[in-house]
C-alpha cells in the first residue's frame, strides 16, 4: 500500500490502468479451493493513502454507513445495489467475493465447499459446507438451494434476474413459454449435494450462480408467511439468516441495523458487532457526517467535495478508492432495419464507414474533463477494465480498438463522405443532419448535448439537431419510433465475463432497442462460438476479434467507463469492494483504535 500523496487525478487514473495490466499479465491471484477465480479489477491499488499507523482494535466494532432503503429483502428478487449490499451481508450463497490488498476480486468458497463439472461442461454438482445453520438453528441444505433456483425462474413471480438461470435445461421454457417446472434440470442429490444441467456449456455459469439471486431460501418460511397473510418479501422479522450478520431493526426509508450473526459458520473471522445503515439524502449532510466521523464509508456522488477531500486523503484523515465499475457509457447509433425502419432520419446510419467516422469525431478526454471532473476512465473500447475471461483480464489481452485510430478531422471527414457515397446520399458532410434525442432538460444534459453537437459540427462538419423530450415516456416513444440518429446510454454488466456486454449486440437480442439494432452474422457467429467454448484462450481471442469488428463498423460510440469515488475513514480496515454484486463486503472489516 504505497502512500501517494497529492497525486493528480489524471495521473492517478493512468497509474491505475497500468497497475491492473501488470497484475493481470502476471497471472497472480488464486485463492482457496477449486472454485476460486479472480478479477484484475483496477480498483483502489494506487489510491489508498496513509496506511493506518496502528493495528490495535477500537473498543467499539461498529461500522456506520449511508444507504438507500431496500424495496425488498427477498434474495431471488434482488434488483438494486442497496439490496445486493445488505443481502450479501446477511445471507450467504455458494461463493463470497472479497478484494485483496490490490483491490482485485478474490472469490472464495462460502456455502459451497467444492463443485465438480462434468467433462462435457454441462453438469455442475455442488457440495455444500457441512454444519452451516440458519439463524433459527435449522441446517442449510441442498434443498434450500434447489427451492431457490426453481423459485427464481417461476413465471408468476417475474423476477428481474431470472434470465441468469436460463442456461439451465428447461428454465427458459418454464419461465417464458409455459414449460413445466418438473423439466427444469435442478436436482437434489442428497442433503448437502445438488446438481444443475445446462443446455450448452457456459464458462460464466459459476460466476453467475455466486450472485444474490441464487442464494438459498427457506421455502417452509415463505409458505408459512404466505399462509398467514404475512409479507415475506419485505418483513425482516419473518426471515432467517445464514450470513455474517442479521437484520435486527429497520425503520422504513430511514435506517437499518445489522448485528453479528454468532451462528455464522465463519463467525470467528467477523470482528464487527454491528453495522448501522442510515438514509441521508442531502449530499451536504452526507459530507457533514463524513467529516465529523459519524459515517465511516461514503461513495461520493457530489463532485463538489473532491478537492477538499483529496486534501483529507493527503493528510491521512481519509482513504480514497477509485473503483472501476463494470459499466460502459456510449452513444447508441440507430441501425434498426426491422419493421421497415431505415436507421434514423439522417439516412447515413446504416453505413459502417459513416458510423465509424462519427465514433472517431469525439474528444473523449475533453468530455471526461468537462463533465466528469476527469474522474472516469475514457473508453476507446466496449469492455470496461477489470472484466476477465477465466483468470485473465480482457483489457490486458486486447488493447482498446479506438486507441490508435487517426482522428484528424480531414481523415474522418473523408471516411464519412466515402460512406455517404456508398449509402447513396448526395452532397458533402455538411448536407447531413444528425438527430440526437434526450429527455429532461437538466443543465448537465443540455451542456452534454451541446458538446456532442459542437464536436460533430467541428470535427466532422455535419449538422446536429437536438430533440429534448419533457419526460421519459415521450422519449421512449420517440426512441421506439426510430426518430433519432443517436443518444447517450449507459449499461452495467451483470456478471464477470465479456459476454455480459457482447451478447447485447447479437442480432435479435432482447436488448437491441438499447443498442441501436447492430446486426452482423459474422459477429453473431463469433459470439455464439465464444459462448459455447470451454477454452479460455479461444474465447479471449474470439471476444477480442468481435470487439474489433463491432467498433470497426461503428456499432456504437463508447465514451467512458464509470467508476466510483469511495472515501473511507483511516481507521477502517479490511473493507472489500468487489466489482460485481454488492459494492461492499463487510464481513472482514475491523475498526482500528483512533
Amino acid at each position: 500500500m504505497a502512500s501517494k500523496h497529492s497525486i493528480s487525478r489524471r495521473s492517478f487514473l493512468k497509474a491505475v490502468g497500468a497497475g491492473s495490466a501488470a497484475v493481470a499479465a502476471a497471472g497472480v491471484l488464486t485463492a482457496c479451493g477449486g472454485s476460486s477465480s479472480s478479477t484484475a479489477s483496477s480498483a483502489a491499488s494506487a489510491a489508498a493513502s496513509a496506511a493506518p499507523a496502528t493495528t490495535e482494535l477500537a473498543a467499539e466494532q461498529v461500522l456506520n454507513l449511508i444507504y438507500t432503503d431496500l424495496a425488498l429483502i427477498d434474495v431471488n428478487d434482488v434488483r438494486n445495489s442497496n439490496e445486493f449490499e445488505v443481502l450479501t451481508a446477511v445471507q450467504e450463497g455458494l461463493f463470497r467475493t472479497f478484494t485483496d490488498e490490490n483491490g482485485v476480486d478474490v472469490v472464495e468458497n462460502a456455502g459451497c465447499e467444492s463443485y465438480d463439472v462434468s467433462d462435457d461442461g454441462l453438469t455442475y454438482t455442488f457440495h455444500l459446507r457441512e454444519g452451516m445453520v440458519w439463524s433459527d438453528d435449522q441446517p442449510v441444505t441442498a434443498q434450500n438451494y434447489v427451492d431457490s433456483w426453481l423459485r427464481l425462474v417461476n413465471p408468476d413471480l417475474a423476477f428481474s434476474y431470472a434470465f441468469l438461470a436460463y442456461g439451465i435445461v428447461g428454465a427458459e421454457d418454464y419461465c417464458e413459454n409455459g414449460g413445466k417446472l418438473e423439466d427444469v434440470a435442478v436436482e437434489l442429490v442428497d442433503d448437502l449435494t445438488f446438481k444443475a444441467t445446462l443446455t450448452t456449456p457456459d464458462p460464466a455459469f459459476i460466476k453467475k450462480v455466486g450472485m444474490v439471486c441464487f442464494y438459498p431460501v427457506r421455502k417452509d418460511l415463505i409458505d408459512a408467511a404466505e399462509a398467514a397473510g404475512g409479507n415475506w418479501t419485505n418483513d425482516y422479522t419473518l426471515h432467517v439468516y445464514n450470513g455474517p450478520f442479521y437484520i435486527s431493526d429497520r425503520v422504513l426509508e430511514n435506517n437499518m441495523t445489522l448485528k453479528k450473526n454468532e451462528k455464522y459458520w465463519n463467525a470467528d473471522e467477523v470482528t464487527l458487532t454491528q453495522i448501522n445503515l442510515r438514509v441521508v439524502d442531502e449530499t451536504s449532510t452526507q459530507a457533514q457526517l463524513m467529516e465529523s466521523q459519524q459515517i465511516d464509508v461514503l461513495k461520493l456522488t457530489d463532485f463538489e467535495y473532491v478537492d477538499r477531500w483529496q486534501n483529507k486523503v493527503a493528510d491521512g484523515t481519509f482513504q480514497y478508492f477509485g473503483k472501476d465499475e463494470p459499466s460502459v457509457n456510449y452513444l447508441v447509433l440507430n441501425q434498426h432495419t426491422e419493421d421497415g425502419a431505415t436507421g434514423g432520419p439522417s439516412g447515413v446510419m446504416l453505413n459502417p464507414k459513416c458510423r465509424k467516422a462519427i465514433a472517431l469525431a469525439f474528444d473523449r478526454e475533453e468530455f471526461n474533463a468537462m463533465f466528469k471532473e476527469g474522474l472516469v476512465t475514457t473508453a476507446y473500447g466496449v469492455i470496461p477494465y477489470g472484466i476477465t475471461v477465466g483468470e485473465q483480464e480482457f483489457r490486458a489481452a486486447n488493447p482498446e480498438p479506438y486507441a490508435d485510430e487517426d482522428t484528424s478531422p480531414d481523415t474522418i471527414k473523408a471516411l464519412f463522405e466515402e460512406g455517404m457515397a456508398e449509402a447513396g446520399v448526395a452532397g458533402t458532410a455538411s448536407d447531413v443532419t444528425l438527430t440526437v434525442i434526450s429527455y429532461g432538460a437538466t443543465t448537465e444534459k443540455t451542456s452534454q448535448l451541446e458538446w456532442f453537437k459542437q464536436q460533430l459540427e467541428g470535427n466532422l462538419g455535419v449538422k446536429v439537431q437536438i430533440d429534448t423530450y419533457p419526460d421519459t415516456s415521450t422519449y421512449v416513444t420517440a426512441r421506439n419510433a426510430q426518430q433519432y440518429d443517436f443518444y447517450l446510454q449507459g449499461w452495467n454488466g451483470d456478471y464477470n465475463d465479456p459476454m455480459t456486454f457482447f451478447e447485447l449486440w447479437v442480432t435479435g437480442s432482447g436488448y437491441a432497442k438499447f443498442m441501436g439494432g447492430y446486426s452482423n452474422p459474422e459477429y453473431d457467429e463469433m459470439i455464439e462460438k465464444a459462448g459455447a467454448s470451454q477454452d479460455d484462450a479461444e474465447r479471449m481471442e474470439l471476444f477480442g476479434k468481435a470487439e474489433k469488428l463491432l467498433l470497426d463498423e461503428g456499432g456504437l460510440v463508447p465514451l467512458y467507463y464509470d467508476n466510483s469515488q469511495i472515501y473511507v475513514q483511516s481507521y477502517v480496515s479490511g473493507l472489500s469492494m468487489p466489482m460485481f454484486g454488492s459494492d461492499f463486503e463487510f464481513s472482514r472489516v475491523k475498526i482500528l483504535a483512533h
Partner: protein
Amino acid sequence: MKMLQYTVKRFVIMLFTLFIIATATFFLLAATPGDALSARVEKLPDSVAARMYAKYGLDKPVMERYVITMKGLVHGDFGESIIYEGQTVQSIIKEKAPISARLGIQQMLLGVSLGLALGVLAAVKKGSFWDYLVVALSILLISVPNLVFALLLQQVFAGKLGWFPVIGWPSNHLWTSGWNYTVLPTLAGCFGYIASYARLLKASMLDVMNQDYILTAESKGLTHREVILHHVLRNSFIPIVTNLPMSVAMCITGSFFIESVFSIPGLGLYYVNAVAAQDVTIVMGETVILAALYIIVVFVTDILYTVVDPRIRIRGGKR
C-alpha cells in the same frame, strides 16, 4: 335543529369533496407519463415486463383501475405499496405520522408562542424600533426557505460546534426521549410560524385598536395595560384561533426538506418520495386521508368561529 341540519349538510358536502379529490388525484396520477414500474422494467425482456405489470394490475385500462381503486377506498382498503411490497397506507401512517407530529407540534408550540409575543410587541410599540425590527425579522424569516435554515443550523451547531447530533431521531419512547435530536429540526421549522403569527397578530391587534369600543374602554378610564389585555387581545385572537387548527393539521403531514436534511423518518419525506416514485396506491391513500383531515379541520374551525366570536351565529335561512 338548524345546527344539526347544517352539520349534516356539511357532512354530505365533505364526502362529495373527498370523492372529487380522490377522483382528481387518481386521474392526475394516471395522466402522469410513466409509472412506478417503468424505470424498473425498462431493461427487462418484454415478457417479464408484461408479467410485472399484470402482477400489480397496472396492465388494466384506466377506467377499470379507477373502479377498483374507488371500491377499495369505500372499504378503507387503499391497497399495497408498489415500491415496498406489503406496506399499506395505514401501516405507513401509523409508523410515520407520530414522528412528524412530534416535530410539527414542537415547531408549532415554539414558533407560535414566539410569534405571538413578537406580534404583541410590534403592535403595542407601533412605529418604534421594536416594531420595525419585528417586521424586518418576519420578512427575513418568511422569505428564506427552511431548507436553508436547516442546512445552516446543521453546519454550525452540529458540524462546527458539535453541540447536537448531525442527523437522527429518537427511535424509542417516541414522544419523550432524545430531545437533543429534536432541537435543530425544531428550530429550523419554527421560523415560518414566528413570522406568520407575528404579522397576523400585529395586523389584527392594530385593527382592533382602531375600533370604537376600544375608545370607549379607554375613555372609561382603564389603563392601557388593561385595555390591551382584556379588550384588544381577546378580540384580535379570532384570526389566530381560526388559523391554529390548520397549523395543527399541517403538523402531522411533516416537512419534506427538514425531514430530508436531518434524516427523520417522517411522513413528509415519505410522501414526496412516493410521489416521485409514482407509488400510486400510497399517494392515493395518503392524499385522501390527509384531505379528510383538512376537511374535518375546516369544519371544526367553522364551529370555533362561533365560540370565539359571538357575532357569528348560524341563523335559519340566512347562511
